């Protein structure tokens, strides 16, 4: 059905288009009701799915927070183990087990580095550093 509407004012053009073109508005009462129910069900399903997702994300967040707490506690426990393993008493016991003894000052050997040799090393080092 072709209707010439160009000569009409725009508001009348719109009213005629709305009356003529969307034929699906011309459904029977039953079909329209069915369509409404289906649309409402779809919306309800979408809302349910969305709520489900939020709840699932909430649970996931809670689980992650719990895991974070557990990891923090694990870190504390590891620190405690480090403290015990690196304690001076433990190191002393380990050293004694391996036959180590404390060094006395007179047993220390210091090797003096000649200042000339040190500067030469520095120079040679810098020249080496310049090589490709």
């Amino acid at each position: 059905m072709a209707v010439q509407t160009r000569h009409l004012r725009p508001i009348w053009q719109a009213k005629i288009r709305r009356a003529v073109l969307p034929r699906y508005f011309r459904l029977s009462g039953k079909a329209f009701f069915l369509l409404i129910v289906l649309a409402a069900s779809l919306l309800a399903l979408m809302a349910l799915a969305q709520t489900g997702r939020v709840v699932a994300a909430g649970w996931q967040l809670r689980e992650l927070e719990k895991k974070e707490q557990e990891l923090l506690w694990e870190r504390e426990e590891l620190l405690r183990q480090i403290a015990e393993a690196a304690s001076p008493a433990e190191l002393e016991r380990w050293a004694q087990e391996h036959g180590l003894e404390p060094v006395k000052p007179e047993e220390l050997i210091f090797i003096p580095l000649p200042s000339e040799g040190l500067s030469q090393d520095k120079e040679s080092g810098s020249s080496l550093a310049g090589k490709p």
Partner: protein
Amino acid sequence: MLEFSLQARRRTLAIIVLLSLLALALFGRLLEIQILRQGELIARAEAEIRGLEKFPIRARRGHIYDAQGRPLALSKKSYTLWVDGPTFDGTPAAIAEVGRLCTAQPREILAEIMARKPITGTYCCAYFLDPTTVEGLQKAIENRELTGVTLLVEPKRYYPYGELVASTVGFVQRSNSPQTNLSGEFHGVSGIEASCDRWLYGEDGWVSGERDPWGDPIPIGEREEHPPTDGADITLTLDLNIQYVAYNRLVEAVQRWDARRGDIVILTPKTAAILALAVYPSADPNHPEDCAGAACQMALYGNPPVTLYYEPGSTMKILTIAIALEEHVVGPDTVLTYTTTTLCGIPVSNWNYQFYPEESLSEILLHSSNIGAALVGSRIPPKIYYRYLERLGLGRPTGVELTGEEERPFRRPSENGESDTGGPRWTCADQVANSYGQGIAVTPLQLASAIGAVANGGNLMQPHIVQAIGRNGVITPTVPVLRERIFHPETCRNVTEMLAAVGDTKGPDGGPLIPGYRVAVKTGTSKIPIPELGRYEEYRTIASAVLYAPADDPRFLILVRIESNAGTLWGEEAAIPVAASLAEFLITYLHIPPSTGTGGMP
């Protein structure tokens, strides 16, 4: 075609009827919930869902580390056990398990809870339960063998090295009583835990939102959250290895001499960074509730090297001679000649009752001559002498980041002749006694800091124990603070040379204390005053020794103080061996090369 159309119509009708019934049922249910049972359900929800009250989120308390990054204080997972009177029930075995763990409530309440009498209220039954202890209880709750019982995770402060660093690190206590199912606030009571509490504690956050009966947030409910700022981690200048050796040497000495107590301060003279603060007897900060005796209380709540004043005895002579040299009332080569032992009307005697008619400054320190030190001290104009002692920080808080420092002014001459301290008026006899370290009180840290100024060339540094504060990966180091320049380097060189001469004779056979190294040493033996009686104890003494090495460029300064139990204890016999043994350890530990011209390595 007609049949098909009829069938289709029937099916459509059936679907419509079905969906309509469903919609009707939903509508009916909505009607019931929203209108018919509205009042009842709102009341039930309000009872079950915790409202929009703010729940605190506790900030994680920061750690305390030693200079090498070993944790001195951290948090440990523990559980608090809560029992809800009205809903408490379960199997006999599970109830017996609760009864075994419950120790925090009075027996009568516990008995009522155990008998499942209808009592109201929720009771905190036990604190700080170890995770392994509550495993059985957790299973019982999970298996629904127990109701009305809640286990809440709560951090417990844990000190891995216990009494080794108890005085310095301190401990924390709950600041509020747990009336609700919330963990209380833990704040430092002593030591670094108290002095750095504002950094360690951080800032609590809060969450506001709907929660279910178990306290868990409802995900689709209203929720607002302000996350907590965790506490900062504190790194100390204290080195646990040095602390360990110092503590062990101190324990040996106190036990060997049957002494009452003792403490050791080790610091770096150039920066006044504290390397060790050993105290014995000590106490376990993990169990402050078990601390009953005075010594234990002093170790845990006070920090004797920082707070406990004592008369320093002969170690004070170092400062007297340094002040005299700085003021040019004597020179390094001055030889004092004297015929009397009565100064300012008081008789002065040496520790061994020997009399030396002529003594150089070096010999005064070598003999530890009270008469010589008193004579040198008397030559310094009183106001100038006490002004120096004040500038050296004696009797005043040092400003170290530890709690408990107090001011204890000493008597000094005043403009109007009245006493500044409210006690007896100052007389010149005070200056005589003060010159050799009696009649004036200092803390070991004050004295170590003041002698540190002599050791480092004249700069009074502020003692410090906090090396850095770290938060969120950002580390803020502390900077050594120069409080005042007191002495000229020349004065310090002269005094150090005299003290090194003492060190050259304190070895086992009268030789150097540590072969190959020049070590500046001074011992002290001081009487203990009884303020109420206005006199000194007859026999008891405090033996002490100050040592810094190497003399020409000191890397460490040690102050040892040992308080005798009943008899007299001499610094020479009790304190010097401890200081020397520690110096030997520190020389090897810090890789200090031998001094030149001492028979050591060239």
